[in-house]
Every structure is written in structure tokens, then in C-alpha cells.
């Protein structure tokens, strides 16, 4: 083994730099907060549906909106999509979402039962 090529299977020692440590602490805080918020949103969604008083016409868009918010929190707080250097990830994920947005309504609606 040449000395100048570091061995990737050697255990990493030491801790994070001060800067990283601060960042991590902040991150953890954000994550806990968003977790609590997600639990809250989920409960709201379930309650919306469980209470029969809210009409579907309103409930369905509402719970869908909640789902979207939750997913964005997962993507950006838990999966760090907004970190620097994630441009390509964003592009590809959003393209996937774009195709998904095309796909779901078509499969749901354009299947010949109702003509548009």
C-alpha cells in the first residue's frame, strides 16, 4: 500500500470540528421540531377524516396539502435536500416528482370510463 493513498477502511477517529458541532446541534433541534410538527400534522389529518363533520370536498384537498407539507419537511429537514452541493439531487428528484404528477391523474382519470 502506498502511504499517500489513505485507507478508506481505516476507522475514523476524533470528533467533529467546532463549526460542524454547532451545525449539528442546530440541525438536531430543527429535526426534533419538525418531527413534532409532523406528528401534529398527521394527527390533524386523521382527525379531519375521523370527524365526520367536515365535508369531503374540503377534507380531501386539506389532507393532501398536509401530506405535501410533511413530505417537504422530510425531504428538506431529514434528508437535507437543501444542503449545498445537492443541485443535481434536487433536479432529479423534482423531475421524478414532475413525472409522478403527470402519471397519477392520468392513470386515475384517463382510463376511458369518463371521457374528457
Amino acid at each position: 500500500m502506498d502511504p499517500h493513498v489513505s485507507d478508506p477502511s481505516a476507522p475514523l477517529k476524533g470528533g467533529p470540528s467546532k463549526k460542524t458541532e454547532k451545525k449539528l446541534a442546530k440541525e438536531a433541534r430543527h429535526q426534533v421540531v419538525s418531527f413534532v410538527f409532523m406528528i401534529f400534522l398527521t394527527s390533524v389529518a386523521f382527525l379531519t377524516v375521523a370527524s365526520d363533520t367536515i365535508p369531503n370536498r374540503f377534507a380531501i384537498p386539506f389532507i393532501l396539502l398536509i401530506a405535501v407539507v410533511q413530505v417537504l419537511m422530510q425531504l428538506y429537514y431529514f434528508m437535507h435536500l437543501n444542503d449545498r452541493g445537492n443541485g443535481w439531487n434536487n433536479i432529479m428528484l423534482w423531475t421524478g416528482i414532475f413525472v409522478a404528477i403527470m402519471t397519477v391523474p392520468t392513470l386515475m382519470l384517463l382510463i376511458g370510463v369518463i371521457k374528457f
Partner: protein
Amino acid sequence: MSQAYAKKSVLWDWLTTVDHKKIGILYLAAGGFFFALGGLEAMLMRIQLMFPELGFVSEQTFNELLTMHGTTMIFLAAMPLLFGFMNYIVPLQIGARDVAFPFLNSLGFWLFFFGGVLLNLSWFLGGAPDAGWTAYTPLSSAYSGTGIDYYVLGLQISGIGTLIAGINFLVTIINMRAPGMSMMRMPLFTWSSFVASALILFAFPALTVGLLLLMFERLFGATYFAVEMGGNVVIWQHLFWIFGHPEVYILILPAFGIFSEVLATFSKKRLFGYSAMVFATLIIGFLGFMVWAHHMFTVGIGPVANAIFAVATMAIAVPTGIKIFNWLFTMWGGRIQFTTANLFAIGFIPSFVMGGVTGIMLATSAANYQFHDTYFVVAHFHYVIIGGVVLGLFSGAFYWWPRMFGYKLNETLGKWFFWLFLFGFHLTFFVQHFVGLMGMPRRVASYLPGQGLDSLNLISTVGAFFMAFAFILFAVNVVVSVKNKSEADPWDGRTLEWGIPSPTPEYNFAQTPLVRELDPLWYEKMHGNGKLKAAEPLDDIHMPNGSILPIIMSFGLFVAAFGLIYLVHPVTIIGLLITLVCMFVRSIKEDHGYHIHKEDIQNEEGAG
């Protein structure tokens, strides 16, 4: 560490290789074989259609031939052949030593290969699939034999391979570029491979799901497509075309890339409107996802949907037109050399435009009710596929052959091949436009006399024989030219792949090159000393180890597929276990590769 130098048998070397160049050649070999097979199937169909009511093959056989022809050509011939070039050339064009995931690269190839073999074994095991390459339900789900099971599993396995290859190219192109090779300095072939790979990434999952559903329906009694159980048969068509339309751009974009390289090289000019070309490629890829229902105008999704998809489809003419005109203006003011590679590129332009404009005619939804499922459609897509993709493949073959195999193909034979092929191609498919409008549906095992279809079909078959004959000339050329040893840069090339010794060293670039402009090699020829500048000092080069696991993993899935087709669960489980255990071994056993030493590189470079 010393494995690299241990003497390995040639066969073992090829079976275990993770070198992108060898995998590229494997793709070309396998793809070439399947192309001949698909061509043979086409010839049998054309012979059957030569005269009305000819009983050369039975109806059933004809349906199997047409299905296997379409499936083989698209999945097992055209795409793998393009992958062959992409694998070999893209890393070279971006100044990389290898792809991002050499192991997965090999896995992708072997999955494709075993999927293809599985599909073709159906011929001997109860009949090939017979529902068309589109396998519309419920014909495929409830009214066809085991052939469809082979279709489902064969395509599923090879599809996974394709998906893996797609991701691999994407990451390679993003992460492995040499210093200075910014995205906007990438050669167009790399760009178009990049976009095609992105299309693979987003299109193949829809096919995966479609095939999964079809498999569950046929083998495990699911009822998605069983109308009496609340199912719907149109869902399959959407899933197929959400994949299927992007698929045709997956085929054509890399071919566009090849033409961009070839036309620029042999016009001795920089590609005209480089950024417009890149932009157009991206737009085509993007629009490619919004038009799939143009294959379903007659299915009954309603006039609003039809109108929207018609207009969206037509929009694709714009970016494609941009490309066509930029190619023409690349030649404008240039010094055009009529090498065989360039002949194919030049022949492509009018041929593809004819196919493209019939595409726009097809996109006219109200008129599509007349065109749909007739030979007009057959004519359209062979014009774009053969006039685009196949001419691109041959152009690329003549262009890159010296780089890949160290010898030049014979130009005289090549030109004969070109002219015969082009003539045969137009003869075969031009008349089919009329055949279709005159009332001949596609996928018919024969036709009745007295409908005015006889002579045109005969002409078409004659044309096909020209193509077949031309193809044989190509095969001959490959063999007889072997002695035609070529220098490293036979065409006065412009891009990085021509700046390295021939034959291409295992590690591609002794030193990672420094890229200073678009067309880096040309730039160095004009403004430097004609040699690529190095971005790093000469040093040991890290290489990945070969592995036999990919082939075993693919074989495992192949075995599992038989278990599924014949519902022998132990076989399925054994097959899946083989694959899973290999995955396990792969993730447990860390493999850090080996190094090629500086001195060896110096020796080799000195000799080369």
C-alpha cells in the same frame, strides 16, 4: 493487489470484467447478435407478406415473429448497441478512467443479457410471446400462452439492467469529469447520453410496474385488467406508453449525439449552435414525458385529452427542427469529407426528417384515427428508427471502430454497404405509407388479394432483401478489415477520446487531462502542441477488481424467472437466494481494487 498481473484466461477475464471498455464491447457483441436475430425475424415477416395469402408461416408464428421482432429490436438490439458506444466512449470523452460504478456496470450488462436470453428461449419452450411488443391487455393477460410470461420476466430482468446502466451513466457524467470539463464543454454525445439516461431513470419504473402487474395478473390471479372483476384494460396502455414514448427518445438522442460528433469532425468545424443543441436535447427529453397518449388517440380518452396530447406532441418538432438546422449549418462553410461514417450521418438528415414529419402527421389526432395501427405507423417508426437510430449506430461504428478495436473498417465496402442499405431502407418503408392509407392494418399475418396492396408489399419485401444483403456486407467488412491497423487519431478528431494511444490503455488516461475548451483535442491542435495537457502528475492509478458476482446474480434471477413461469416455488426461491447471497457477499466483502504502478504506465505509454 497482485491479482491484476496474475495470468487469467481470456474467457474468465471477459466474464468478470468491470472495465467500461470491455463491457462496451460486450454490449456491442450481444446487441449485434440480437440485431441479426431481430433482422432475421423481420425478413421472415417480409417474406410472408411478399404475396397475398401466402402460407409461409402460420398466423400464430407470424404474431410471434412480429412481437419478437419489435421487442428484440428495441430492447435487445438498439438500446444495447447504443449502450455499447456510451459505455466505451462517454468516459473517454469526459476524461475519466472509468464509470462511477464499475461493478454495477457489469451487473447491468449481464442482467440485460440474461433477460434477452430468457426472452428468446420462449421460442423453444412453448412458443414466443404473440401480443405485439406493446402486449396490450387483456390479450396479453388472459388470451395468450406462456410466451407472455417470458416477455414479462425477460423484459423485467433486462429492464433492471437498463435502469442500473442509466443511473451509472448519470453519476459518471456528473462526478467523473476531468478538470475543466464543465457541463457546457461536454461533447454532444455525452450530453445526449446524459439526457437519455435521465429518461431511462424516469421512464423504466413505469414499465417495471406494468410488467409487475402483468406478472401478478397472469401468475398469481390478480385482477387489475379483468373487467368482470372491476379491472380496467387501459391502465396497462398508459403504463406502457409512459415508458414507451420516452423510450423512443432514449433511442434517438444518443444517435443524435453520434451525428453531432461525426458531422462536426468531418466538416472540420465546430458544432454550430452548441448551446442551442444542448438546450434542444433537454427540451426533447422533457417534452418526451408529456406526449405518451398520442399512442392512444383511438382508445377513447376523450377529445380534450386527445387535443392536448396532440398539440404537446407537435411541439417536439420545434426542438428537433433546431437540431436539424444546426447540423445543416455545421456543414455550411465546412470542408465536408465523405467518409463512410459521415455518409451515414448525411444520409440520416433527409431520412429522419421524413420520419419526423410523418410523426407530426400522426400527432394530428383527428387524422390519426385514419393512420393509427396501419402500415403508415409502421412506415413512420421505421423511418425514424432506421433513418435515425440505425444509421446513427452504423455511423458511430465506422467512426469509433478504430478507437475500440484498433483497426479501420474498409471504406469501399463501407460505402457499398451504405448505399445498398439506404436504398433498401427507403424502398422497404416508403411504400408502406401508402399501403397503410390504402387500408392495410399493421400486425396482419397476411392480406387478401384484390385490394390493391399486392405490388406495394412486394416492393417492400424486395427492399428488405437489399437491407439484409447490405448488412451481410457489414459483417464481412468487420472480418476482412482486421489487418487495417489504425493510428490513434485517424479522423483528425476533436474530442478527448482521440487524444490517447491506440489501442486504448486499460486506464484510459495516463494522466487525467486538463480541458481548456469545447472540443479539447482540437483546441490543443490549434492553440497548443496537439497533445492533451495533463491535470495531474503521473502517478499510480487505482483500478477496480473484476468480479464474477454480476454474472451469478443475473443468473440467479434467470433461474428465479423459470420458477415463476412454471410456478415451481422452490426454483424461484433458489434463484432469488443466489442473487441475494451475491448481493450480501458484495456488501460484506470490501474490495478496494488495485493499483497500476507508475513505472508500468511509463513503459506502456512509451511503447504506444
